[in-house]
């Protein structure tokens, strides 16, 4: 059975390849039609492929670097992120002993930013991890059971999607109250439908595939087919979606903390640091600039990795 799924996957891969190879005919036709677009030449395509992988490698390097930093931050020669030193209030970056300066309470910004990265990464991994598992299972069940269960679940997802972005988080946070655990719960609930819909779609698409029919002919139970065939075949999509969901969760958590609804002080958190620096933006701009830059770097890294993964696993999306 496993062999048959593999054969199917490769034949599908070859199919997409052949589509790209037969491109010259439409592209020739289109070139006549300037100003309508021309297909890139082979050199440009090759160059882009190399650049794309290189960009993915850069993203991966950023992510690995930040993760390692977040793990070993305890062993780095840094000040305690919560110790206030009244002799160096708002020291600018480059002050000896305080590479990125200090905040309004004399706390070391570099130390706070690095500890903040740990908070941010732990929250986003926890959220994406639990949301992808719960969402995939619900999606699998919805696609597999269909009927009333499917329509109820779909309605619930509609409700979650009817509040755009951060507004849904606010609805949950406003009732649960601020805090790290609450933020994780809220972010997880809002991320579940992303994975649920994806998985349901995958189940629907694969139900009528030949290898599923073959398995059914051999007498496999629907549940066996779902867990042994459809689920493994959908894992790469879930993985790609998870990689792409992480930056969104990091940004959402930062926004919640920025609004004072996420990580409570004095725990260092990027969003909170931006809002703390906001009041003295003119005097000490680095207090807001530094944590924001770290958010940008982290989410950029994850976005690059996610894009790379998607291109690798699903070349049909290439444009």
């Amino acid at each position, binding site marked *: 059975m496993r062999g048959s799924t593999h054969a199917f996957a490769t034949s599908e891969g070859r199919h997409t390849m052949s589509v790209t190879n037969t491109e010259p005919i439409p592209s020739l*036709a289109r070139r006549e039609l300037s100003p309508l677009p*021309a297909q890139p030449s082979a050199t440009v395509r090759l160059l882009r492929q190399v650049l794309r992988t290189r960009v993915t490698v850069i993203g991966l390097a950023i992510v690995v670097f930040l993760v390692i930093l977040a793990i070993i931050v305890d062993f780095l020669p840094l000040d305690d992120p919560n110790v206030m030193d009244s002799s160096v209030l708002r020291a600018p970056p480059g002050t000896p002993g305080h590479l990125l300066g200090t905040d309004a309470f004399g706390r070391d910004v570099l130390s706070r930013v690095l500890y903040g990265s740990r908070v941010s990464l732990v929250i986003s991994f926890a959220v994406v991890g639990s949301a992808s598992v719960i969402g995939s299972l619900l999606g699998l069940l919805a696609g597999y059971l269909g009927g009333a269960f499917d329509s109820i679940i779909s309605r619930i997802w509609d409700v979650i999607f*009817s509040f755009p972005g951060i507004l849904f988080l606010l609805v949950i946070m406003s009732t649960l109250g601020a805090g790290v655990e609450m933020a994780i719960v809220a972010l997880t609930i809002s991320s579940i439908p992303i994975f649920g819909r994806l998985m349901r779609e995958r189940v629907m698409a694969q139900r009528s595939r030949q290898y599923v029919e073959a398995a059914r002919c051999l007498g496999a139970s629907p549940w066996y087919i779902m867990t042994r065939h459809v689920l493994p075949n959908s894992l790469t999509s879930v993985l790609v979606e998870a990689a792409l969901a992480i930056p969104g969760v990091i940004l959402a958590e930062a926004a919640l903390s920025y609004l004072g609804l996420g990580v409570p002080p004095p725990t260092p958190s990027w969003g909170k640091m931006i809002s703390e620096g906001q009041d003295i*933006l003119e005097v000490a701009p680095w207090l807001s600039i530094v944590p924001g830059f770290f958010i940008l770097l982290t989410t950029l890294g994850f976005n690059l990795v996610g894009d790379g993964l998607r291109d690798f696993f699903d070349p049909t999306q290439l444009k």
Partner: protein
Amino acid sequence: MNQYILRRLLQMIPTVLLSTLFVFLMVNMVRGSAIDIYFGTSASRSPEAEAALAARLGIDKPLPVQYLTWLGKIMTGDFGESWRYNKPVLALIFERLSLSFELAIVASLISIFFSTLLGTYLALHQNSVADQVIRFISLIFISAPLYWVALGLIAFLSKAFRWIPPIQYVPITRDFWTHLQIIAIPSTLWGILSVPIFSRYVRNSVLDILSEDYVRTARAKGLSGRRVLFVHVLKNAAGPLITVVGLSLAGAAGGTLLMEVVFTLPGMGRLWLTSIYQRDLPMIMGISVFISLVFVVANFLVDLCYAWLDPRIRYQ
């Protein structure tokens, strides 16, 4: 079309019911302490006052009864009364609504206009330098916290031009020009910041249509590139463009909230945040339900536009 509108209206009912139920249940998970939240550390707390409050809020009744009573009141436009302002919730919402709407709509108009323009240009110049640059910028903008970018802009404006956001908010009815000054920067900023992201959508949907057979036919008939673009391509790209409108409105709603905080504007987002900080339960419930209603209606309108542009959708 009428039949489609009716069907779509009927579909809205379960969504609205579910979202009200959701808000109600979420609030009631913490409702056990509603009396504590109401009184806080106030000295007026006494067993009699507690009983009176419980009776007034109706929390002495079973949950389903409470939900239906509350739902019935909302249907008649009674969103309850704020605990902190002692005014009807709906009146407070309407006081703040116009500013948020104004910000969101100006921001979306700006982003829709420029992303359509830029997206079409990029589709016609696929894989050009501009295409790559915009791709890179949109990646940065997706990755950056946009309130942070806004703060950076304020810092820059105050350093370079000695301009700081006006401290006092002025409504449009009192002084149009001062009001415009206050609105212009946050809404333009939010609109422009979303252009690189949305222009990618426009680019991809225009590209899809450029590769359609009828475009080639139109070219083969000898029509000029411009005529093909405006008559055949853009008209058929209008459907996907509606998606961009929906997305940018949704984005503007979240963005407006953050812009209100960054620029300290008294919009609905700030009202919501304050009521969260103050644990003003009727206000929280009212605003949550109100916002979900707004978005259910907005989605409905977007779907109607789709159906109007593409008759196939009406008969699905």
